[in-house]
């Protein structure tokens, strides 16, 4: 609760900072300090939590568990890492720098609510607080037509999915007379009301939209490609992880007992997501667009957490969110240094900037799921969770085949960097601060790959 309040207040402060301070660099510094402060609040809240005790607020509308606070802390840390890695690129996007950072704070408010809601209306509010800043961010480069197109497309599609979400909530409320997600009457019943079933289906559709799962993924490539690159990085990582934690919370808390009736639908969605994301990514010419499709493919893997109704899935989601977030942020940070976003733009990078190429290789290994990197452990946990379901072996094998396909396009970047010759054009010289930060990020990827339990402290 402390974190939600702090993030809201800091977001409002940040908006006013934008009025008062005109120097972009100063705004960046202030924002960084405020993110550190928010991380501090999260850690403080984490320390005051007792193991295994959930605190409730507003008459059981919010249930804050150690897991929620831990997830919040990790996402705040990821945001801080993001600001550190790409701060200079963020302030180059447009004029209203203060507002961008304020919007990040609001996205975090949405995230915090999604990790701890216990009421469908609050879930709805959380999703909207998460989404609306993203619509704005994707259109923040006002001089670019593609950016405006991305924003409009995202907004219209998002509005549709919000409608469907509300419809789902209404149907379930109509059937049960209950908004509290842990008190639905069908949790004790043998038979399931068709109205509830329809509601669940609607909820699946709208969440699938939010996490860009097929066949509700069509907005993703255009929005991610059109948005200013630093914001794409944020939307594809923290934004996506937050939507997932909302997804898993509702489906595991409320619909676990009726999982037989929706598991197969979601399994097919997962298979389709993996297939479309990976196969389409193979044919991309631009690394940025490839990363957009790869984020669809990775969402396919993250959906395993929702399908597998086990405690393992919750742990897996933590590791997957963090592993995917760090590697993707790192990859985008490297991408932002380059002028040309096509694969050819990477040609010969290893000769010109060996460190940049090396860290990019580690991020790619992580995304492709090579052992010793965080991405491998993440995939491992997901597969383990899915396999513990018993009847999903076909999906696991299919996912592994798709992971092999993913190596195909991820390694195209490595081939370009190391085995091809060329003269890659950089936007700016890579400063030594950037190098140290990128090296630390790569080190973090390997650290999580070797000892993933640092992300799973006892009691969450």
């Amino acid at each position, binding site marked *: 609760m402390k974190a939600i309040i702090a993030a809201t207040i800091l977001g409002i402060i940040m908006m006013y900072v934008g009025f008062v301070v005109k120097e972009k660099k100063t705004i960046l510094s202030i924002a960084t300090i405020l993110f550190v402060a928010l991380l501090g609040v999260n850690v403080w809240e984490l320390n005051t939590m007792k193991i295994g005790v959930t605190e409730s607020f507003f008459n059981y509308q919010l249930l804050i568990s150690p897991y929620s606070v831990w997830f919040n802390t990790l996402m705040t840390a990821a945001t801080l890492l993001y600001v550190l890695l790409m701060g200079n690129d963020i302030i180059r996007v447009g004029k209203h720098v203060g507002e961008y950072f304020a919007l990040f704070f609001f996205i975090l408010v949405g995230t915090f609510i999604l990790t701890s809601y216990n009421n469908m209306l609050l879930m709805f509010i959380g999703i909207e607080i998460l989404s609306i800043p993203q619509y704005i961010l994707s259109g923040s480069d006002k001089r670019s037509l593609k950016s405006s197109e991305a924003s409009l497309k995202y907004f219209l599609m998002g509005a549709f999915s919000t409608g469907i979400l509300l419809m789902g909530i209404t149907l379930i409320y109509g059937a049960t007379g209950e908004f509290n997600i842990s008190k639905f009457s069908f949790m004790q019943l043998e038979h399931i009301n068709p109205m509830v079933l329809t509601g669940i289906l609607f909820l699946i559709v709208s969440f699938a939209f939010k996490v860009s799962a097929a066949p509700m993924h069509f907005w993703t490539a255009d929005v991610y490609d059109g948005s200013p690159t630093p914001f794409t990085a944020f939307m594809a990582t923290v934004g996506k992880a937050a939507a997932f934690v909302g997804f898993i919370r509702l489906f595991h808390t409320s619909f676990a007992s009726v999982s037989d009736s929706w598991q197969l639908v979601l399994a097919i969605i997962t298979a389709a997501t993996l297939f479309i994301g990976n196969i389409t990514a193979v044919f991309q010419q631009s690394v940025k667009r490839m990363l957009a499709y790869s984020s669809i493919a990775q969402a396919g893997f993250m959906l395993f957490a929702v399908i597998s109704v086990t405690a393992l899935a919750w*742990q897996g989601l933590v590791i997957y969110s963090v592993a995917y977030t760090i590697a993707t942020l790192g990859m985008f940070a490297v991408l932002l240094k380059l002028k040309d976003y096509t694969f050819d733009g990477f040609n010969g990078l290893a000769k010109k900037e060996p460190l940049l190429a090396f860290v990019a290789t580690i991020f790619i*290994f992580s995304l492709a799921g*090579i*052992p*010793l990197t965080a991405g491998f452990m993440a995939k*491992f*946990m997901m*597969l*383990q969770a899915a*396999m*513990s379901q018993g009847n999903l*072996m076909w999906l*696991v*094998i299919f996912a*592994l*085949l798709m*992971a*092999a396909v993913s*190596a*195909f396009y991820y*390694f195209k970047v490595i*081939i370009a960097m*190391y*085995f091809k010759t060329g003269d890659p054009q950089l936007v700016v010289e890579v400063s030594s601060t950037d190098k140290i930060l990128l090296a630390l990020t790569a080190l973090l990827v390997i650290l999580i790959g070797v*000892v*993933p*339990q640092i992300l*799973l402290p006892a009691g969450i």
Partner: protein
Amino acid sequence: MILVFLLLIPFLAGVVSFLAKDAAKNVALFGSLCSLAVSAYVAIFCGTEQVPSISIPWMPTIGAQFSLSADGLTAMLCLLTGIIFPVTLLINRNKNIENPAAYYGLIMLSQVGLMGVFLAADALLFYFFWELALIPVYFLSSLWGGERRIAVTFKFFVYTFVGSLMMLAALIYLSMQTNGVNAMSWDNIIAAGKALPLMQQHIIFWLLFVAFAIKMPIFPFHTWQPDAYEQAPTQVTIILSALMVKMGIYAVLRWLIPVLPEATAFWADLVMTLAIFGIVYASLLAMVQTNIKRLVAYSSIAHMGLMCAAAFANTDLSNHGLLVQMFNHGINITAMWVIVNMVEQRYGTQDLKKMGGLANTAPAIAIALVIISFANIALPLTNGFIGEFMLFTGIFQSASQYHIIFMVVAGLGIILGAVYTLSMVQKVAYGENNSGVATVAKMNGAEWVAVIILVAFIIVLGVFPQPLLDLVLL
């Protein structure tokens, strides 16, 4: 604890090589000699009373431990790895390599992966090293290989990666049969596998077998191999053909046959048919090759086919023969590549039609080539004989109802082996000198050392194989 050094020494040597610039060549050689010393110590002194092993908690939540152990089979393969690396580093010492620091660093890192695969007594650790052995080789071949290196190496990578992922699914499934902090240990995986119903065993069997068959490689999963061997720099080809293919056969012996005994017995006939068909198929293809590296590559497929067939024959004699032959094949194929490398450098081509007359111009190389070729076709008094003899007897004794057909067809493969190997010797060493190179450089010091070590192994183990049998039958 000594086992950790087997991983640590090549790792440190690799890291230092990366920083050492031009001295990398010597750093790597020194590191590989140190790891040879340790692996020899493990092979000779350890294990007489109890198997050396180490186990440290690693990821308790998913049941993985950092656990290494070295029984006879492992000690033998570590020793082989320890021998092959210094020998590999001895050849090509005069050749100028672009960016030697990275080259030798990656070579040493691939040794870490190989040692780890042989030592790991935990399924997840095994998988880690299995993949990690691949990454340095991928970069080595793609950066320093022949003209078509990028596409060919990528094909190799994708093949093995698909296989590894299948294996991953199987290992996770097996580990989930047990709870607790050591669910992934070898003992628990075996217990889990044996307890599975037959239907599940079949599925897991194929997931594992495909991964191992790609690595070995067994027909029809072999298509990456001739291209990869041809395009990789010869030192990397040695690592691939002498050691990395052993990962496949080792994995079959360690992680497949004991884990799924019923499914193995069920599918043994099919696997042996594939393997033995592969022997004949590869031998026939080897006969028509004009590129010397491709010829040796196909001959390697034939030899691996025989070993795989023997593994699935699963009699005492075939198993013992297999252990002996794994070591001997490692030595022989390395020796073959060393000679091929010398010939290629001196004639400046891999084309067999443009060679000839080596016996006149460089008799020492020609004599070495003849001895090594004899070992390759398993003539008595060479080390190849004892292993292949045991394999054949083992296949003949197998419980399969087709055992006679298997032996006869595999024997045909051996005759074909003699045909292509001797025809290669004839084209390289005798006849007209078609190369246009009049004088051929003599062997230099380092090459002498490498050839003498390998030929000594070939002859000593051919005449007196007992020490090797003692080691592997601990």
